[in-house]
């Protein structure tokens, strides 16, 4: 007697059929690092796993018409090793590099990380900073939805039952953009993120900020770009004092969105420091240790 069944999808459309087979609760299996643990703690979580990890099209990373498309089953290792990612979105490569350790990066997938939508998921702040969209496939057809709308809260997405996340895409940031990702954990590997920040920015020829994006992780109920912070920066020249102002707005936003909680006494100063640092890295080319 086994706890759950397994079937390998022959293609993406086959996967959707299998996920919607009546009479069974089926879930996609990509890397397995989240779902197998889920099944350990909650044996009734699903009846059957549909293996999509073997579908090559779901591992593809390609650049097309000003966008980068990443197959949902691309592993963290595949993403961070890919030259398209390191050229267009260092923030995402850096985020993937902080996940777990070698083994988890070889197994865990971007799609799995997004679909699981843990509050501390490392890829989400980076992807949302990139204004990424998610492509969902259901029996009814294909749907593209901004990632910031797809992830609705901790462990909550708008993925319909029987739906399959097939790819994540982001528009390639304009020439001259720089991006960075910082993670704070309790140790230097295999650590759940205490806080993360993902930032992107661009200055014009006069060194005036023309674009600024900031997303925090493990700080707010929804992982989203903080417009109030970004507005503090755009149109100004980057200085340490400006970053300090932006950081102050960041923690105000955190409190406004999450309320003042037991952890806020720590997160306020820590997030302040991390926000200042990530902007220094983006605008001053200052590499952080």
């Amino acid at each position: 007697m086994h706890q759950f069944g397994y079937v390998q999808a022959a293609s993406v459309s086959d996967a959707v059929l299998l996920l919607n087979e009546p009479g069974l609760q089926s879930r996609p299996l990509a890397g397995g690092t989240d779902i197998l643990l889920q099944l350990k703690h909650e044996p009734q979580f699903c009846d059957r796993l549909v293996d999509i990890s073997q579908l090559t099209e779901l591992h593809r990373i390609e650049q097309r018409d000003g966008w980068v498309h990443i197959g949902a089953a691309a592993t963290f290792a595949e993403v961070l090793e890919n030259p398209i990612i390191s050229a267009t979105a260092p923030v995402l490569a850096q985020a993937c590099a902080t996940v777990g350790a070698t083994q988890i990066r070889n197994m865990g997938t971007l799609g799995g990380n997004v679909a699981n939508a843990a509050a501390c998921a490392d890829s989400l702040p980076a992807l949302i900073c990139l204004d990424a969209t998610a492509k969902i496939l259901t029996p009814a057809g294909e749907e593209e939805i901004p990632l910031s709308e797809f992830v609705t809260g901790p462990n909550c997405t708008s993925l319909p039952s029987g739906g399959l996340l097939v790819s994540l895409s982001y528009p390639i940031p304009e020439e001259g953009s720089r991006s960075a990702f910082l993670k704070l954990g309790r140790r230097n590997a295999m650590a759940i993120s205490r806080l993360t920040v993902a930032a992107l920015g661009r200055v014009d020829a006069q060194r005036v900020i023309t674009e600024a994006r900031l997303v925090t992780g493990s700080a707010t109920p929804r992982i989203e770009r903080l417009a109030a912070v970004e507005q503090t920066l755009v149109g100004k020249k980057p200085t340490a004092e400006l970053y300090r102002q932006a950081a102050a707005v960041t923690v105000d936003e955190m409190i406004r969105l999450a309320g003042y909680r037991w952890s806020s006494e720590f997160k306020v100063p820590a997030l302040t420091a991390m926000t200042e640092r990530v902007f220094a890295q983006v605008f001053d080319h200052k590499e952080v240790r």
Partner: protein
Amino acid sequence: MKLQFNLNGKLVETEASADATLLSVLRDNLGLTGTKEGCGVGECGACSVLLDGRLVNSCLTLAAQVNGHKVITIEGMCLPDGSPNDLQQAFIEVGAVQCGFCTPGMVLAGEALLAENARPSRLEIRTAIAGNLCRCTGYQQIVDAIQITAQKRQEKKTDA
């Protein structure tokens, strides 16, 4: 369900439940006990194996997922005559082995690193084995063993 995969260079066939992990199939079905269970949740790396050349935690890999693929365990590391390979020998000589429970995973992590980075720095070595917990050695001699092996392999290459 029936499984067929390449294990340490040989084709093996076995029957396993759909929900069986690769770790349990290796240990219980195939009797290869070199791969260990340390935590069951993919945190300690004692269960590490190479799947198509990539280091993975076999406790979080379904056996079904390796069907048709290539798996290497610690039992596949030694030389054809059963003697330790150069990395394993280095582990012995520099004192990188104490209780030995993390050792199979560490050796595989070292091999996986050297397959893609022939000249790793100490930091790169530490990063490569960061998913393998050791409670005995403090890691230093393990890093030494991998570094020395890398150097020796490079020397051999330049000699050749």
